[in-house]
């Protein structure tokens, strides 16, 4: 009997040992687009994402576990993104999490991720109702959605006007990319329009968005008080140029964060001066600690991705922050399932759901001042709903507002009803408290 126990123990030890010896790398797929109509914006994002992963490795990995990653070019095409996802999901011991970087691809992968047991991160984009973790178990729109962005913009406008009641009778126009991405803010804006009595008109622009003459002709006719811009890539600079041509005041224009980075305004130069955009927490952060660390430990060693002077710009920071949130999800999973081990997709999902990034942790990571603390839970997969407005001064982006928090009383019911509708269509039952612990 004793002999048997010894043999079993030895066999166990051997098997654990061999597992230990093999896989020591945590694999992260990188779906990016460096070609196509949206490349000018997709490239800095991908550079920031990859540079941060390199920085984690330069810091010594996650409790000793190094990160490995592989890029796959999607060209912002949904079918291509699905192919990339299928290609990378099983590589090198399985993907820890996936970030599709496109709303269309997020919708498609949302249907696939639960079966593959891979968490789907959409940091600041994707489908807004997926903040409801009881229905969307595998989706994590951490740090904000388009509804948060739209709400923050409306708050900033209300503040500028001197209160919500001053918005009554005002005209607000949404100029949007005609795709699921561009349509995402509409339900929230309609809700707000009903609450405060402003007039909302919707002007879609066919992708990629170079043809906007008719749109701005309508704006010239209607003379709205504010224009919200939900564009991407070349559509943004075109919109700004048209605004200049139409004579629409740029300080009455508010973009979403995809419309508020350097490539969008650079071509327009002085014409874009005064243009505002909402930032999902961070803006351009060349002074932050993490940027200095990347410059020193990654670019300084000649391993940087992309040009050095782009480090710390808006989209670069978005990439870095997206990578950081994913990596911290893995770290928090390690705290429960064993430090220094490679986590599976399911374990990372738990980690994402129990993320607790305090100010001290953010400071240690170099993100102090860049963003506010975030903690997620089973019900709340978004974690925080804070945003700021920044304004282009002709040379760089500068913050022009305090922190704004999206109004939970507006957003929560909207999330709940939309998620419930999804659950009903899919015949999903909401997760039980016991499932939350798993």
């Amino acid at each position, binding site marked *: 009997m004793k002999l048997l126990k010894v043999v079993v123990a030895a066999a166990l030890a051997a098997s654990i040992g061999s597992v230990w010896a093999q896989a020591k790398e945590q694999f992260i797929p990188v779906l990016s687009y460096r070609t196509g109509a949206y490349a000018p914006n997709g490239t800095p994002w991908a550079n920031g994402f990859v540079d941060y992963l390199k920085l984690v490795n330069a810091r010594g990995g996650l409790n000793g576990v190094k990160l490995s990653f592989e890029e796959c070019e999607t060209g912002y095409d949904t079918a291509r993104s699905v192919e990339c996802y299928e290609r990378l999901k099983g590589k090198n011991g399985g993907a820890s999490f996936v970030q599709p970087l496109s709303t269309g691809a997020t919708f498609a992968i949302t249907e696939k991720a639960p079966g593959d047991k891979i968490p789907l991160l959409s940091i600041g984009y994707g489908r807004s109702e997926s903040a409801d973790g009881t229905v969307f178990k595998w989706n994590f729109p951490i740090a904000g959605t388009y509804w948060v962005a739209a709400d923050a913009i409306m708050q900033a406008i209300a503040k500028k006007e001197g209160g919500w009641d001053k918005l009554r009778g005002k005209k607000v126009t949404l100029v949007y990319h005609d*795709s*699921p991405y561009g349509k995402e803010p509409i339900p929230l804006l309609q809700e707000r329009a009903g609450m405060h009595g402003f007039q909302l008109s919707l002007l879609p622009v066919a992708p990629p968005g170079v043809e906007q003459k008719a749109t701005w002709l309508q704006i010239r006719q209607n003379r709205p008080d504010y224009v919200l811009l939900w564009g991407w890539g070349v559509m943004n600079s075109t919109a700004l140029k048209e605004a200049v041509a139409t004579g629409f005041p740029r300080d009455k224009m508010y973009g979403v964060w995809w419309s508020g980075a350097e490539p969008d305004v650079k071509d327009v130069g002085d014409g874009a001066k005064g243009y505002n955009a909402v930032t999902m927490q961070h803006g351009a952060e060349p002074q932050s600690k993490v940027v200095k660390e990347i410059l020193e430990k990654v670019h300084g060693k000649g391993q940087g991705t992309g040009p050095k002077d782009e480090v710390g710009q808006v989209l670069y920071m978005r990439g870095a922050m997206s990578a950081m949130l994913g990596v911290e999800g893995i770290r928090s999973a390690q705290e429960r399932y064993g430090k220094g081990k490679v986590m599976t997709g399911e374990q990372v999902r738990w980690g994402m759901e129990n993320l607790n990034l305090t100010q001290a942790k953010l400071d240690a990571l170099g993100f102090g001042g860049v963003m506010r603390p975030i903690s997620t839970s089973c019900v709340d997969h978004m974690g925080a709903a804070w945003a700021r407005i920044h304004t282009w001064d002709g040379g760089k982006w500068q913050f022009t507002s305090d922190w704004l928090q999206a109004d939970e009383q507006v957003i929560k019911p909207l999330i709940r009803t939309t998620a419930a509708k999804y659950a009903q*269509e899919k015949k999903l039952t909401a997760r039980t408290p016991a499932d939350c612990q798993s």
Partner: protein
Amino acid sequence: MIYRENGQFKTSYRADQQIFPILQDRWVIAAFILASFILVPMLASDYMFRAILIPFVIMSLAALGVNILVGYCGQISLGSGAFMAVGAYGAYNIIMRIDGMPLVPAILLGGLCATVFGMIFGLPSLRVKGLYLAVATLAAQFFADWMFLRIKWFTLNTPSGSVAISNLQVFGFPIESAHAKYVFCLAFLVVMALLAKNLVRSAIGREWMAIRDMDVAAAVIGIRPMYAKLTAFAVSSFIVGVSGALWAFVYLGAWEPAAFSVDMSFRLLFMVIIGGMGSIVGSFYGAAFITVLPIFLSQALPAVGAAFGVTISTAGITHAEFMIFGALIVWFLIVEPHGLAKLWSIGKQKLRLWPFPH
């Protein structure tokens, strides 16, 4: 030697009119179909299924549909993407609005929606032809884009305009695993390819080809152009609509109108031209060329680069992929303007005489 038909005598019309009159062909095709149902599922990896085989099978079906219209009936169409979209959204609405609607009838009804849509947009073919018709069918594409973006009824009022489907099942058997999805699509393809092959061999198929070759002459010998053209539009859009439903339901899972943009129409037309106009098997070659080759290149180029010690960036790979792909299209069309199917039939002719060509 291997590919020789002497000794194979036909004693009845029936035997003479089979799809594959040569014994070797019958064996090879039967073995091929069996292998794709049994052997491939045993060998292929999950990635092979989900990223290569399933899109290839669905695109073959779509190319087959387009080939009936463009290749057999000579009606050049740039609205195939729209017919796919109508099939996809039609099947989606049928399955979501009717309680307990089974999957296969829903997909076929989606195909019927596309048939009606295709016949309406096929009406101009009675007056215009050639490039003019291609431009007229572009209207179908723009109309479908507009319809599915703007009319909320079709998307069940989803706020973002993107719709999703899951929990697919046939007779209680879930179509979730890669294997099940592949076999499901393959079954559609095999049945429809067989039907299409028989259709083009029959009287109606000969009418289509007569219209394609010279419509005035066809009308003189008593073929009704309206009947022939509209049936070609109907059959073609039915097959294309079914493939659209499969593309949306099985491959994407969630989709938006952009998934069936004008880009898709062009790709389908290229598949038919490269694969071989007026050839059923050419549709498969064309689909393989257009869907599989870019994926193959994007994976092979880094490996080739690594062999020479060069690391190519992902953007570089994509650019190289476009260039090589474009060059290959030009090269193939110069070498064999009648498409890959013609190359295949030339090969078969040579094999018949091998090893003693006269």
